[in-house]
C-alpha cells in the first residue's frame, strides 16, 4: 500500500514536471513567434509579392529568404544620395557593401538553419559574423540592434524558427561591391 502511494506520488510529480517542461517549451516558442513577428524578420526574410492592396509578404514561403528562382540583373548603380536599391521581393539589397540576399531561416537541413546549433545562431547575432566565425553579416540586417537581445530572447527566437516548415531554397552568396554579375 505504501509502495502504491509512493508510486502514485512519483507519477503525479513526473507528470507535473513534464507538463511544466512542455508548457515552458510552448511559452518559449510563443515568445519566439512574438519576437519574430514584432522585430521585422518577415520584412526581409519572407519574399514579398504584389497583391491588390500592394506588396505583402508571401507567407507560403515564410522566412525562406531571397528566392533562388528569382534571377536579378545587375543592381542599378548608386546615383547621388540614392545609394541603396531593393528588389521587388524585398529580399535582395544593393548598397555600398555590395549586394546582400536575405538568408533562409526555415528548418530545411540543406538550405536553411536545420543543422545549425543554438550556439551558431546566438554567435551569429552577437558577433555579426556568419555562424559567429565566418564572413560579416551585411546590411540591412540590423545586427547593431539585434545583438542586444537577451540570451533568453535569442533562445526563444531560435526555438520558434525550428518550428517553421522547411522550404528548400538555396540563397545565393552575396556579391562584392565591385561585382557586376547578375545574382543567379
Amino acid at each position, binding site marked *: 500500500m505504501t509502495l502504491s502511494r509512493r508510486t502514485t506520488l512519483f507519477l503525479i510529480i513526473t507528470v507535473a514536471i513534464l507538463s511544466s517542461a512542455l508548457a515552458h517549451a510552448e511559452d518559449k516558442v510563443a515568445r519566439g513567434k512574438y519576437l519574430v513577428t514584432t522585430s521585422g524578420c518577415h520584412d526581409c526574410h519572407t519574399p514579398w509579392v504584389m497583391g491588390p492592396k500592394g506588396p505583402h509578404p508571401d507567407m507560403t514561403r515564410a522566412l525562406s529568404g531571397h528566392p533562388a528562382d528569382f534571377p536579378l540583373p545587375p543592381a542599378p548603380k548608386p546615383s547621388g544620395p540614392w545609394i541603396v536599391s531593393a528588389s521587388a521581393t524585398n529580399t535582395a539589397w544593393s548598397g555600398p557593401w555590395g549586394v546582400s540576399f536575405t538568408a533562409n531561416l526555415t528548418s530545411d537541413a540543406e538550405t536553411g538553419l536545420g*543543422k545549425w546549433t543554438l550556439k551558431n545562431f546566438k554567435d551569429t547575432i552577437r558577433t555579426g*559574423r556568419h555562424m*559567429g566565425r565566418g564572413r*560579416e553579416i*551585411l546590411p540591412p540586417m540590423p545586427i547593431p540592434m539585434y545583438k542586444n537581445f537577451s540570451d533568453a530572447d535569442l533562445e526563444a527566437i531560435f526555438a520558434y524558427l525550428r518550428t517553421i516548415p522547411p522550404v528548400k531554397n538555396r540563397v*545565393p*552568396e552575396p*556579391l*562584392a561591391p565591385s561585382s557586376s*554579375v547578375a545574382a543567379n
Partner: protein
Amino acid sequence: MLVRILVLALATSVVAADQSPIPRQPGEAVEFTPRYPLWSDGMDKRRWLHLPAGTAIDKSDADAWEFPRGTRAWKEFRRDGKPVETRFIERLADGSWRYLTYAWNASGTAATLAPEEGIPERGIPSRADCLACHEGAPVPILGYSAVQLSLALPPVLGYLHGNCGHCHNDAALPALELSLAQQASDPEASAARTYATLIGRASRFRPHGAANPQRVVPGQPAQSVLVTRMKSNDPLTRMPPLGVSLVDAGGVALISRWIEHDLQQAQKEAP
C-alpha cells in the same frame, strides 16, 4: 570602471619599463614555434608561453590540454624587422580566458593597448574577432598543443589544421560537416575525416555561375571551392574570413599541387 582599472593594471604589468609588452627576464617565458603556423599576411611571428611557478599543463587529454590558471601567452608580429602588434592571452582565476592586443608605434619602440573594437585600418582584430577563432578550438591557445608541437602530419593536413581547423571542426561548426582539425589521440581517424569531408563533397558556398560546386575536385584545383576561397581577395569570399588581407601564395600552391597531382594520382591508382 573596475574593468578599466584591471585592464590598466594588466597593461602596466605587461608593458615593462622599456615599453615592451614582451617578457624579457630569462626563464619567465619560453619561446616556441608551432609546426603548422597560421598565415598572417607574411609577417614574422614570435611566440612565448608563461606558466605560473610550480604549475604544469595537464596533458591527459592529448587534444585538449588543460592550462593552469595564470597561463599567459604572447605572439608578436613583425614587419620589416619592426614589431607592429602583440597579441596576448591569459587564463584568469575563474578559468576563463582574456584576450588583449597591443599596437606598436611606427618606429616599433612602444606599444599601447588596442581598443575593444580593434584597429580595423591596421588589421588589428577586435576582441570579438579574437573569440571567433580562439574559442572555436578545444583550447584557446592554438599554437601550443600536441598536434602543433610534435605530430608529424602530411604538409596539406598540417596546413589545414593550422590555418582552418580552429573553426572548421565538428565541435565549433557541426552544421558544415567539414573537419579540418587533426587529433593527436587518433591522427588516422582525423585525417580520414578531413579527406572524407573535403574530397568530392558538395560545397555549401556556391560561387556565382557554378552549378554543382564541390569542396575539392581531384585533379582540378580551379574547380575546387577550397582553392577558390583561399585565392579570393573579396572579403565576402576569402578564407580565412578574418586576420588576413593578403593571399597565402605558398599555401595556395601547396593545396593546388595536392589536388592536381596527389589526388589525381591516387584516383588513377585506386582499384
